[in-house]
């Protein structure tokens, strides 16, 4: 019997290596797998590259992981937040590398990695600093730049419902980067608010099918807050 549901955080985090590329879903704290980030902090992997829309806030979660010196490089679209002190301090001190990526390009690069597209031409960023050093091409009268797929070694995902095959649904705007992080990562780890019996999720309503999911941990934490 296939059973992707694991019983402990230690089992969820098993095998994450130093130097991994971690794709972290969430937009603000909505749809953000906070328990898994804490699990990663506990697990100990270091020298990480983290791709995430934001660069953490306050001193918890991703900010805490950075504060502990575990993140070598961050790929994000919006490193500002209500309280970006950890990121800004590290960045000014030259202790963390930053790759700024337009938000849509970030999502599309993850989706491309999951879909077997190694690189793609987009108009976003043409004529800006983002285009410097990138291949330009005119196609049907418009200029595009080439962007590369962004693969994760590990993806951290927050779902609303999950079953033992790893099928997932998301709640409202909690969907955001979760499906693309799941499909782009070699090892996709999920925390889910609810665990459903196999077959309880309507096959027409599954958003992320289990083929993109490796392990699911039941984390019924309640409402997001504090973004």
């Amino acid at each position, binding site marked *: 019997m296939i059973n992707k549901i694991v019983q402990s955080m230690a089992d969820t985090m098993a095998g994450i290596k130093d130097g991994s590329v971690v794709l972290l879903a969430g937009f603000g704290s*909505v749809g953000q797998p906070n328990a898994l980030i804490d699990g990663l902090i506990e697990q100990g992997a270091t020298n990480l590259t983290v791709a995430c829309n934001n660069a953490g806030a306050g001193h918890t979660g991703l900010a805490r992981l950075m504060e502990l010196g575990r993140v070598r490089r961050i790929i994000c679209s919006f490193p500002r937040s209500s309280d970006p002190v950890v990121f800004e301090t590290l960045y000014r001190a030259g202790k963390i590398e930053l790759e700024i990526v337009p*938000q849509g390009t970030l999502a599309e690069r993850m989706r491309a990695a999951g879909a077997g597209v190694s690189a793609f031409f987009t108009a*976003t960023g043409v004529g*800006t600093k983002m285009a410097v050093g990138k291949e330009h091409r005119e196609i049907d009268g418009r200029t595009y730049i080439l962007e590369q797929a962004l693969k994760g070694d590990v993806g951290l995902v927050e779902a609303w419902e999950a079953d033992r095959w790893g099928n997932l649904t998301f709640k409202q705007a909690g969907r955001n980067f979760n499906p693309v992080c799941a499909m782009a990562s070699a090892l996709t780890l999920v925390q889910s608010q609810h665990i459903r019996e196999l077959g309880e999720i309507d096959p027409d309503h599954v958003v992320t099918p289990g083929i993109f999911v490796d392990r699911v941990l039941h984390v019924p934490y309640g409402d*997001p807050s504090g973004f």
Partner: protein
Amino acid sequence: MSATATAAFKPFSRAEMAQRAAADIPEGWYVNLGIGIPTMISDYVPMDREVIFHSENGVLGMGPAPAKDKIEPWLINAGKQYVTMRAGGSFCHHADSFSMIRGGHLDLCVLGAFQVADNGDIANWATSENDTAPAVGGAMDLAAGAKRLWVLMEHTTKDGQSKLVTKCSYPLTAPGAVKRVYTNLATLDVTDRGFVVLGMAPGLSFDDLQARTEAKLHLPA
């Protein structure tokens, strides 16, 4: 550029700027409103004129802010404010949401800006080439992808510098993208000739406006 002595005039308030932009949005348009003043525009589109508001984080068909006791914790917009969903709204993931933007499906995006040039260039994400950690978010996707880009901003900086310029001094968000600008002093189209003034704050003359504007202004043909 300092203002010359002018007769008394009354600049548009932020609410009036939002209201003017709102009045120009026809029913049926799919519209993304940037963080800040542009977000106010939706307050001035009556519910019976159906305009479908999109937010980058996978929300299509947003309604107004919820009452405090009706907040849904998973229902936020790109500015991370709580919103509501209208009947007919839908959720999608980030790549699908940006497909709407990058695929040219939005009729309109309204952004704030630091500078707009008379060739339509927009600078709205970083105030220096060496910004320590500039935050671009979805601005470049929206500026490059929407069918129309409008800008809602003050006409000048706090110290009186014109934000309508001949050439942006700040890093660009997108070249040649802006079609219209709503400021506290005027509404302007960006045309092949440059800025064309469509309307001005009450009591302001064209010469007064030009005196406050670095870029050359034109009257409608």
